[in-house]
């Protein structure tokens, strides 16, 4: 419990209205019972309501708070929107939750194509401001409601990554409050107050900050970041409709989605690669097929009516390529791109289907929240960035494993997940999502999580499931072979007292130790002195 003395110090930093240890206020920060990965064992076993909550407004306030915590051995957790589920909530008793939502500063530099944001700023307002000034950014798959900083130091990709590229390339000057409260400035911020450059005269620690898919605040708190934007086309994408039936009307002469059906997975992959090779399109993607049923359904009951019509055969023989054309420089450029696209698709047997002249998701609104509609439990369990061709093997392997755990996983008839081109076809992206009813016995879902890692290790798929997302002592030795040792040394160096979001990055290891239903799966070595 945070002492009265410390509480008074915290009040003096942010003002009494922005700190509270009232149990009702703290309960408002509970991770579950619903939401991303919530309701599973990891949430039930590993998360706790914070002992106290504080809402700083400035980097200096964050520094002062963290220094108090470090001196007084108070564990703390940085928190932006809380959408990322249990891994962004306290794992230990009496933690101080540092809610960063008031740090929502926003600066747009139109001339130099970047925005500068605080961790409280979410994606959709950034995109609106950018589009009003001839630029655009990725709305990450985490959703339009995700903190841009949290998303960029974790995941940060979407179908728009076909052209915009991988997220780490867009992180420019960045300010980090280190676990002990010292301030680290990356990129050109290291020498003056201009955040334009991501590269710094000294060491560039953006890789450490991000890792593969983020370290969930265990290496400090990002309080300011400049994000690169890219030129967009000039016409307005007009919001239309009344909720829940809203979309952006697209100026068809400058922005257009086209859905193609193709005869095979091979044709799908070839189409994506050739579109990238031709350096056309703003997005090239194939989303999980049940998302189409979500889009058609008026309600969850109707979703099951529609999805229930599918079979393994119908899913196995349905291949779609969804292409977003953007006339970045002119209408003529888009018309030319469309001709090139048709030249690519025709010999592959691609047939252009009727496509709505609007955008419901990806340009300004990534509809990740709607993913919970049909089941109530959801997590995006595996994402892989490799070559486009690897997905031909990885998708079916994953679908086979999924079948073993269905139920409690939702019947998906072998849907091989989300698959698309990144960086004009130089990278292929696969993402696999799992859904379940939270009222079912979810222990098998916990086991499936770890089994996914084992499958990836066995088949040598390069997976995202490293670091804090899985048992570090399972994945680390297989992806390095000393990834775990390296990461733990960095943690010890930056945070010798392990005050910043403990016990991350060992939280999943601890979970496996604590959860009896996981013990039978543990066939890897780990030290006896894991935090208990």
């Amino acid at each position: 419990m945070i002492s009265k003395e410390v509480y008074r110090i915290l009040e003096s930093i942010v003002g009494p209205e922005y700190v509270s240890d009232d149990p009702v206020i703290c309960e408002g920060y509970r991770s579950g019972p619903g939401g991303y990965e919530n309701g599973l064992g990891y949430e039930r076993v590993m998360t706790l309501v914070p002992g106290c909550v504080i809402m700083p407004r400035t980097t200096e306030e964050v520094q002062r708070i963290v220094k108090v915590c470090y001196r007084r051995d108070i564990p703390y957790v940085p928190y932006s929107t809380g959408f990322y589920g249990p891994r962004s909530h306290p794992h230990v008793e009496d933690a101080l939750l540092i809610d960063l939502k008031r740090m929502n500063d926003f600066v747009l530099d139109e001339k130099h194509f970047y925005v500068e944001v605080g961790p409280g700023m979410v994606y959709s307002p950034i995109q609106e401001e950018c589009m009003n000034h001839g630029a655009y950014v990725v709305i990450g798959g985490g959703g339009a409601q995700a903190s841009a900083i949290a998303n960029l130091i974790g995941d940060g990709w979407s179908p728009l990554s076909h052209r915009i590229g991988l997220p780490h390339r867009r992180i420019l000057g960045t300010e980090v409050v280190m676990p002990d409260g010292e301030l680290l400035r990356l990129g050109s911020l290291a020498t003056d107050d201009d955040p334009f450059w991501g590269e710094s005269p000294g060491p560039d620690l953006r890789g450490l900050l991000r890792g593969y898919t983020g370290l969930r605040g265990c290496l400090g708190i990002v309080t300011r970041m400049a994000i690169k934007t890219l030129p967009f086309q000039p016409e307005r994408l007009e919001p239309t409709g009344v909720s829940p039936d809203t979309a952006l009307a697209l100026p068809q002469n400058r922005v257009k989605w086209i859905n193609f059906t193709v005869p095979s997975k091979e044709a799908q992959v070839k189409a994506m690669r050739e579109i990238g090779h031709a350096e056309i399109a703003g997005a090239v993607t194939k989303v999980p097929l049940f998302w189409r049923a979500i889009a058609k359904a008026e309600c969850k009951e109707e979703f099951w009516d529609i999805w229930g019509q599918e079979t393994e055969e119908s899913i196995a023989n349905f291949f779609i390529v969804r292409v977003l054309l953007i006339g970045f420089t002119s209408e003529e450029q888009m018309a030319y791109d469309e001709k090139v696209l048709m030249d690519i698709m025709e010999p592959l047997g691609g047939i252009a289907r009727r496509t709505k002249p609007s955008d419901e998701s990806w340009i300004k609104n990534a509809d990740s929240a709607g993913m919970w509609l049909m089941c109530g439990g959801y997590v995006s369990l595996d994402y892989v960035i490799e070559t486009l061709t690897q997905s031909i093997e990885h998708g079916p392997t994953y679908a086979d494993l999924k079948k073993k755990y269905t139920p409690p996983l939702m019947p998906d008839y072998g849907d091989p997940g989300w698959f698309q081109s990144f960086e004009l076809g130089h990278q292929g992206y696969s993402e696999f999502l799992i859904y379940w009813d939270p009222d079912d016995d979810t222990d098998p879902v916990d086991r499936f999580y770890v089994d996914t890692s084992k499958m990836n290790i066995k088949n040598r798929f390069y997976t995202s499931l490293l670091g804090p997302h899985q048992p570090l002592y399972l994945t680390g030795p297989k992806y390095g072979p000393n990834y775990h040792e390296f990461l733990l040394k960095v943690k010890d160096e930056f945070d010798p007292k392990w005050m910043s979001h403990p016990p991350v990055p060992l939280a999943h290891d601890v979970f496996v130790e604590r959860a009896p239903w996981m013990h039978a799966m543990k066939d890897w070595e780990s030290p006896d002195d894991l935090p208990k």
Partner: protein
Amino acid sequence: MAEELNVRYYKPRDEFKLDVTDIENFVYDMSRCIKCKGCTWVEHTYMPGAKFMTRCPSATIYEFDAYGAYGKMRIGHAMAEGLLDWNEKALEVMYACTLCGACDVGCKRNLDLEIGLTLESLRVKAVQDGVGPMPAHKKLAANIEKKHNFYGAAHKDRKGWLTEETQPARKADIVYFVGCNASYKNQEIARSTAKIIQAAGDDFMLLPNEWCCGNTLFSVGLYDEAKALAERNVEAMRKTGARTLLTSCAEGYRMWKVDYPKLLDIATEDLGFEVIHLVEYAGDRIANGALKTTRPFETRMTYHDSCSLSRLSEPWTPYEGKRGWMGCVEPRLKRRRGKNGVYFPPRDILKGIPGVNLVEMPRMRENAFCCGAGRGTKEAFPDFARRAANHRLEEVREIGAETLVAACPWCKSHFSEVTGENGDAIQVLDIAEVICASLDASA
């Protein structure tokens, strides 16, 4: 497929009812909140930019997660599970909220959870548990019980707004339910409404002995008291034999159209009469030529969507059913998502008035930010209500509007008070006044 369906729906089904007197009916909804904060952000398609990003007054003013619907769902869930007790802060969290419905329409774009009903139910629970409502609400309840009006004014003065030229008929097809605010405080709204009806060539009557609609009682969880008023008022209306009940008050409109049926466990269509707001009536009469709004009104104007006329106004249908695998319900539930709120008639009316330059605020229709006064909030948390109104008025200033128009006397009262305190040069009007002022004098 049939066999698979059997497998799919194997789960025993839990019975539930959309009945706010039992919080157990909403444990499912509270347990499925995912913290997407769709309840709080302006819907992303309509997100106006780095200013005016939120539509929830409570979350915007108080900022801790507890005050957003996502926090309230967690707190309510813990209470329903017996893990958390009421305290002073819990009462503030539950009552410093305008029940404006922004959270409900936001959630229903994503997840279809019954957030609005859950919040109402939590207030009923507060009363059932002996801790609610707030002291200011108890005073209002005493006023309504003794004097049949919100203000505690003399009941005999309720018709004080009537003038020689706005006399009601003894018998008419339209009953004008005036409501407490327009009867006692903003009487110009009542007079304007009467003139509009008469200008359209219709007669109106009043309820023989009009009492408060009970909006505040229902909104603060005094369910039994509100139900008694609902029974009394609906019975009085039925006795008139009129086919239409017309209000110029958004809160009264919602009570008659949505919450009376909810309290009486009937569907809106089973009331036995139609409930309409003045803007629906006027829109119809303008369309058929009975009303002519031809007198110019030169102003740069903006329209504020009163919550109870817009996203909260869809008709009520009682529901009782079972929830099974994946949360699917049987029989099918026609969810109230706010899509069919009264958004367009007031805008069409205002746009049709010569000289009116109608400009939208960044947050409009289902994304509008509440004035901050509604449903018992202003009485118990006046500072919060004032801050919320000022937040909304920032938008009015941002677009450079000279005139702010609402379709509810409570919104007008609140905005007028706050602009008056600020010294803002913003004219605040009710739409009844605007329509009345624009009527063709020669007609």
